[in-house]
């Protein structure tokens, strides 16, 4: 590989931007915003550079950077990118600038807000690219700091409590993960994901550690990841955190941070603990189904629109995990025809949910701004009459989230269901309830807010400004493109997924 440190640049340019902003205490907010957006967009630009130089057929890690870092811990500065990481880097490149644009009108402490968002962006990118547990975990934990302050300082009335719950719950999970990796290190002497995966495959981990110890370690890692995603029933921090966060942060949390957990499942838990995951799969399928079904039905019961979308996020992200657990549930003779669709679907679903959920949060943010902070299901009515462009774009995001064919959401969900049906038919059948409930509550949302006679206070609603259209339009356009031409993304990871399905235990 060439020695150009592309991945390092991808991760640290947002942090450099954050550092720069920290120095500019006297700059005009406009300059601050412009600079922040520029740094934020660097991810998209460099992600596209990576895409242009990426060889999908190679299926392994590319642009690898590996340097010795802390010798006595055998920690290395190890970064690499494969189809899955690239997908998430691109998603971050899309969502993070949109989150900044969505926060354009924040007047209070623009600098700190932008700084924290850039900091968060860099941390997330680090998680998606690090191949050594040590740096990976640092990024993982550091992402909590900006997220905490974004929620606490710019959030709604219950923000303080929500932020605490979010951080303490997540750190609580991470502690177990840290302990688990400490134990692994003690046994095999490496933190490197690639080496560990090889050890897991050739039985090196199992020979170095007793079965119960390995199970305990697995549970520790599982807990850390499950809280982050979140997997039912570790999700209770999510609705209030997403609901209380400011719009831009909600967009980032749902678009990117929820993917960090899913990514961890694919990058760490599955390759390192295939046997344990296989053993736990029946239970985990049940939990993922709990997220799918209860998440959707709980969303139906919400009257706070942000909480509704938050619950719908639990439902959508659970599809990714459902697919992974179904794949790991099949034993020594995997139904390979179903494995590839399940995994491809899960990866697509990550990307698609990032687009659609962040667009929906933005839409609700627009409603909040227009109505002076209202976001109740019954606070509006007839918004489509007052703001047709807004209604149209928001409607597209809604139908994308609902899984309407022709838009992106359908392809991922169809593949997930296709795969899960082949591996665990009953899980697919029960999961359909989630699809049904999702249609129900999203259309109810649409009916109450956008249709009907123009509600009190809605008549004066302005339609979207140019800035707001610019925030929303790229994602909406992609929803169309990916709905019709999913090959654009599938081409990036299909060889990788094919390779995964060939290495199944």
């Amino acid at each position, binding site marked *: 590989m060439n020695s150009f440190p592309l991945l390092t640049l991808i991760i640290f340019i947002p942090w450099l931007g954050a*550092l720069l902003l920290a120095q500019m205490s006297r700059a005009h907010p406009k300059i601050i915003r412009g600079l922040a957006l520029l740094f934020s967009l660097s991810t998209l630009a460099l992600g596209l550079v990576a895409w242009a130089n990426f060889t999908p057929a190679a299926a392994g890690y590319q642009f690898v950077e590996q340097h010795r870092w802390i010798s006595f811990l055998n920690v290395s500065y190890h970064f690499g990118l494969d189809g899955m990481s690239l997908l998430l880097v691109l998603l971050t490149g899309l969502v993070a600038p949109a989150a900044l644009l969505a926060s354009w009108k924040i007047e209070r402490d623009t600098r700190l807000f932008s700084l924290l968002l850039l900091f968060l962006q860099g941390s997330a990118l680090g998680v998606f690219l690090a191949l050594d547990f040590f740096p990976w975990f640092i990024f993982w934990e550091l992402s909590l700091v900006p997220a905490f302050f974004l929620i606490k300082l710019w959030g709604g009335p219950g923000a303080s409590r929500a932020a*605490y719950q979010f951080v303490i719950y997540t750190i609580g999970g991470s502690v177990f993960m840290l302990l688990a990796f400490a134990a692994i290190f003690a046994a095999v002497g490496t933190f490197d994901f690639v080496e560990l995966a090889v050890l897991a495959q050739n039985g090196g981990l199992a020979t170095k550690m007793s079965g119960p110890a390995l199970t305990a370690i697995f549970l520790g890692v599982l807990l850390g990841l499950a809280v982050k995603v979140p997997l039912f029933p570790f999700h209770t921090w999510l609705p209030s955190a997403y609901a209380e966060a400011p719009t831009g942060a909600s967009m980032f949390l749902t678009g990117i941070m929820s993917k960090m957990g899913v990514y961890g499942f694919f990058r760490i838990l599955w390759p390192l603990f295939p046997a344990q995951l296989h053993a736990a799969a029946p239970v985990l399928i049940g939990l993922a189904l709990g997220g799918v079904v209860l998440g959707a039905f709980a969303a139906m*019961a919400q009257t706070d629109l942000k909480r509704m979308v938050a619950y719908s996020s639990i439902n959508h992200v659970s599809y990714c995990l459902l697919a992974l657990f179904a794949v790991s549930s099949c034993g020594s003779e995997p139904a390979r025809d179903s494995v590839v669709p399940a995994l491809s679907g899960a990866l697509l679903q990550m990307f698609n949910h990032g687009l659609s959920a962040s667009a929906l949060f933005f839409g609700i943010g627009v409603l909040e701004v227009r109505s002076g902070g209202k976001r109740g299901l019954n606070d509006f009515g007839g918004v489509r*009459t007052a703001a047709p462009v807004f209604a149209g774009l928001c409607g597209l995001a809604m139908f994308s989230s609902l899984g*309407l064919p022709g838009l992106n959401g359908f392809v991922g969900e169809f593949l997930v269901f296709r795969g899960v049906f082949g591996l665990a038919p009953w899980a697919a059948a029960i999961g359909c309830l989630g699809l049904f409930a999702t249609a129900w509550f999203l259309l109810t949302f649409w009916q109450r807010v956008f249709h009907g006679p123009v509600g009190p206070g809605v008549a004066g609603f302005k339609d979207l400004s140019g800035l707001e259209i610019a925030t929303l339009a790229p994602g909406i356009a992609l929803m169309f493109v990916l709905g019709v031409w999913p090959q654009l993304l599938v081409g990036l990871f299909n060889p990788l997924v094919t390779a995964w399905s060939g290495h199944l235990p």
Partner: protein
Amino acid sequence: MTLPVQYLWLIPALPLLAAGIGALTPRNGRNLAAGSAILAMAVAFVLSCFALNGALQAPATHAVYNFAWFDLGHDALRLGLLLDPLTAFMCVMVTFVGLLIFIFSLDYMKEDPNYSRFFCFMSLFAAAMLGLLVANSLLLLFICWELVGLASYLLIGFWFHKPSAAAAAKKAFITTRIGDLGLLLGMLWLYDSSGSLLFYDGGHGVLEAANLASLTGQTLSCGLAVSTAIGLLIFCGAAGKSGQFPLHVWLPDAMEGPTPVSALIHAATMVAAGVFLVARAYPLMSADTLIATAPVHALTVVAFIGALTALLGALIACGQTDIKRVLAFSTVSQLGYMMLALGVGSWTAAIFHLLTHAFFKALLFLGAGSVIHAAHHEQDIRSLGGLRPRMKITFATFAIGMMALSGVPFLFSGFWSKEAILHAAHEWNVSPLPLYAGLTAVVLTAFYMTRLVAETFFGQARSPAAEHAHENHAVMTGPLVLLAVGAVLLGFLGTPACPWLQARLSGTELHSSMSQLFASGGLLLLSIGLVGAGLVTGWWLYGRKLRQTAEHRDPLAVASPAVMAALASRLGFDELYAATVGRLNSLTAALANGLDRWVIGGLVNFLGQFGVFSGTLSRETAESTLNHGFDQVSASIRGSGQRYSRAQTGEAHGYLRVIAMAFIVLVLLLVLGGSR
């Protein structure tokens, strides 16, 4: 001229382009939106005729063009286009009827502020519907299937400021989605067990012999063949879309949309998509009929559901007073006939009836639209009346549609296609019940249509709106006349004497002879008698002594108030669903929410409290200390521009910051070092 199968995508692509143009034109670009929609439809009609011409040259073959959509493992997920007489006839019908309805809408919708949006949505619908017809893949069909559902949703809710329209749109989408989940599961199952979703693929398609043999060969623990289970799941989708019992409740409410929408989507084309789907998948649906030991055959279920729907729809139609709702329940009933035909084994009769029904029902709806337009949106037949002298063309064409629907013998298309269905039901050896249901519905159909015509057009005008009604422009009456011509002539394509349409559809030899006309003489005479009975009863009750005022009680209500009340309230299905499905749904939602907030949330809180206790601190002091600490940190971060390098000893987050800084510096060093 013929249209090769690889160019078949042009037929749906043209209306899609028009929809795109319509979506992007501003509100004042009315002519651009309408013009492009009509032009696209006209060209699509011509292309469909070319395609039909080609398909008729080799009616027994399925010309396909398959292509990869995206990579999937070592293989790819493939979609395809299919051209056979079934596709071609349907395309010609949809584009022709669609074109006439578009033209009709020019005038009907001309005062609507969202005129261009209307043509955009209509074109979107046409594109999706045509895509559904040309699909050679159940997946592509499903994609278009959902998109016609979207277009239907958008158009039912076209006047979305009306709460009833908004509610009806949602109801239509949700109800059909219940069926669609069955279709989705059927599709997943089919994909899983066949490894493909292409209908025809050179011997590897799901509708081809090798695959069907393997599907019928596998048996589930309940004794059903896999093909039966898949067939029934697919039928769930068809039942939802085609308004079959018990999923018929959305269709009457869909009349909230503008009348051209009701004519095109909820009468002629989209609701027939379920019938088309079953006809398309007929080899799969009927694969299990050879298994004598099977507990139930997929088609048997189809036949009984169809028969029940035909009967219920016709019954409820007798008690409706809104001109469009009468027609809506009539559509439900007629779709039941088509399903019945599919179920008893004659898919060609079903398609024959689908095509004739498309013409005469579109005619009836546009006629109703013409009435509604002239009578200033008065839809209640009790308040109409006396329109015959005022709207001569509308009356004449409506009467032709009414006679076609009622099955008035020999001259009208509905007679021949309904005859074909009853004939097939007669020959079905599983049960005579569908035939009886079909025959009963024949009487009812003639009855309620006579009532509708008598109340609407005869007697005296019973409201100022009806008094001031006058005939519409040629833009509206022209399509009526053309559809009326079709409603008469189309029947002669498939008379028993010369069943050209059926032979071309199934790709078999055409056997024509006059003697076949009366081969089933008894049944023919019986059904003619039943039509007569329906007409006479209808006229006896409603025509003999015409209604004087709008408040006058309905003769049927006088005769039996309880029956009339039950029919008027649609036999209570909506209330039943609200009390069961609706309530169950809210209950589940409340339960899920409660579980989340109190049980799991409570547990988490309890653990949290426990943690605080074990720290030997009361919750209050912990909160305040922590809060205080965090506030300090935030304050310090706010002013950190000058002070960021000064580590705040004793502060966890200060440490974190230092670590972060150190990490960045370290990485920069490494980068500089590494890139040398």
